[in-house]
């Protein structure tokens, strides 16, 4: 069993605390993505798991075994680095087999493993090339192969796709998730911790996603939960594109929010999602996809002026000024003709299913009662 457990993991750089006692369990065979903005300590956390960074406090267990003091080579992990980190003076074949040669495995075993891995990643024709003769995508596949050949308990990926162009990134995403499924189907250890700052990668690849901010874990959940039930304003704002709209307001009763000098009606259905004692200052969060546009005045909606329109092909982004706030609404481009034009007044009605209320002080989501 290759379960990875982090217990109260801490990291200090001098007087600066980078990681604040985080707890995380990655189940056997799970694809866990650590995601967050730059400086959120996701890479530091990964490097601590790898043993490349000393930990200040807490425990790291891999397969139940405490590995705090073990050198990276003995932890049963392998790692894929952002800029590939292939050994420039060794041919691809030697790069792949370096770890096995260090362990003095017999030559035929090394040969067999190299063949197997290069077949899996379709890099057989590259075996006798030097890293400088590889393209970015090829180099990344070799780097993955080098991680694979060790048959580790846990794979660590440190932003492996960020040096690739958009098209290649999309295909590598699929390739890596396929590889993960295949390893699992073959009954190999395939626990993955994958660090990225790209929420698309996180959402498409992860079984579960751990959203981090400033050395704290904000939420750990599967992509659907993360999108539909964000625990706080940070997660709500980080996941989803374009970013969720936030409006400071005041809860009136359980069904209406007063924001930007207007009142938004949310309906009885919504009221049941709130805990009974909820009242007062809140932050209203509405995803751009959950705003409907009306061109005639409708009670209980937000009136605003269209400031800017972006045509994205299958949909249109409308930038609407509601009082001092600018909201984004995403509407299908089929509705574009009928939708508001620049400088026109529109009425935005939120779909109550896509609305969240957050405590203005703590930022916690208070609309998750059911």
């Amino acid at each position, binding site marked *: 069993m290759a379960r990875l457990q982090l217990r109260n993991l801490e990291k200090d750089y001098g007087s600066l605390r980078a990681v604040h006692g985080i707890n995380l369990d990655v189940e056997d065979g799970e694809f866990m993505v650590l995601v967050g903005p730059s400086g959120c300590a996701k890479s530091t956390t990964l490097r601590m798991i790898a043993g490349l960074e000393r930990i200040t406090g807490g425990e790291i267990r891999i397969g139940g075994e405490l590995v705090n003091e073990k050198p*990276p080579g003995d932890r049963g*992990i392998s790692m894929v680095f952002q800029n590939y980190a292939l*050994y*420039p003076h060794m041919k691809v074949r030697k790069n792949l087999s370096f*770890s096995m040669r260090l362990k003095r495995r017999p030559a035929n075993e090394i040969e067999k493993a190299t063949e197997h891995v290069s077949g899996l990643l379709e890099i057989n024709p590259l075996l006798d090339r030097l890293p400088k003769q590889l393209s970015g995508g090829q180099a990344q596949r070799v780097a993955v192969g080098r991680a694979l050949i*060790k048959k580790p308990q846990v794979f660590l990926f440190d932003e492996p796709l960020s040096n690739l162009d958009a098209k290649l990134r999309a295909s590598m995403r699929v390739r890596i998730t396929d590889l993960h499924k295949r390893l699992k189907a073959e009954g190999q250890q395939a626990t993955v911790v994958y660090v990225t700052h790209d929420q698309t990668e996180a959402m498409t690849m992860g079984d579960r996603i751990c959203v981090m901010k400033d050395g704290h874990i904000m939420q750990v959940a599967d992509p659907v939960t993360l999108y539909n039930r964000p625990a706080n304003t940070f997660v709500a704002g980080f996941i989803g594109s374009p970013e969720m709209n936030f409006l400071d307001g005041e809860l009136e009763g359980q069904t209406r929010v007063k924001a930007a000098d207007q009142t938004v009606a949310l309906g009885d259905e919504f009221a049941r999602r709130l805990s009974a004692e909820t009242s007062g200052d809140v932050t209203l969060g509405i995803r751009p996809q959950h705003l409907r546009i009306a061109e005639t005045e409708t009670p209980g909606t937000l009136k605003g002026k269209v400031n800017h329109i972006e045509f994205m092909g299958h949909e249109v982004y409308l930038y609407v000024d509601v009082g001092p706030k600018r909201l984004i609404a995403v509407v299908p481009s089929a509705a574009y003709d009928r939708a508001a034009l620049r400088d026109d007044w529109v009425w935005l009605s939120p779909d109550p299913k896509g609305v969240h209320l957050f405590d203005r002080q703590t930022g916690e989501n208070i609309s998750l009662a059911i």
Partner: protein
Amino acid sequence: MTEHVLSHDPSTVGEVAGIRAREQRRHKASIALRYFLLAAVGLLMLYPLIWLIGASFKTNSEIFANPGFWPENPTLDGYIKGWQTSTPYSFGTFFLNTLWIVIPKVIGTAISCTAVAYGFARFDFPFKKVLFASLIATLLLPNVVTRIPQYLLFRDLGWLDSFLPLWVPSAFAGDAFFVFMLVQFLRAIPRDMEEAARVDGATTWQTLIFIVVPLLMPALISVCLFQFMWTMNDFLGPLIYISSVDKYPVSLALKLSIDTTEAFEWNRVLAMSVLALTPALAVFFLAQKYFIDGISSGGIKG
């Protein structure tokens, strides 16, 4: 459309060809002038060396009679007699002595400087900054200042008249310049490769030998070449520590032939100087590519 018109107008075609020919002529003239100047200055710099080689084939009297570099009656006399020397040993012995000083010293320098530079560039340890600063400070210290204390130290150790005082300081990374050069080179190499090696299960020493040293090779070759040439040419070191003639390296032996012969046999001295120059020159030309790589590029491309 424009091209069509141009190509059918004979006067314009002729004009274009004329301009092109003129530009080519001007280009050729400028190149000729450039190469002439470069060759002239280069020759001026090389002339002493050329004269030295020419003079080594002259007779002793011709050296002073004929100012040109081309010998009128070329003779190998200087080489034959110079090689035999006025001592019981031939120059062969002195060349072997030089090699016996140079080779261990170069190997010691390469190993010790790499280890020390790796330590400074990659590890954190107490007083690292102070230690590195003092290492750099020794760069600024004139060599002469340490000669006497060093001499006393080696005398007390009983190492006088042996090669040890010449070998040992270098085997303990005594040449701060080389350490500094390697540290700078290492700092420009990303750490990822070493971290990948550690994840692959390599120990610190395995990482150094299998990953860092190959990456460091261009700089390391430069270090070896510098040390080779400087040691070949070192006169003061052997002069201070080595007293018996059978241990003299070439640099001292050359001086010897000036000292002991009654009337200076200049052609012998010059002939042996030419021979003394050859190893350093040969090594430099053979390894020129690496040499320049090592001192010009601060690292490798990612």
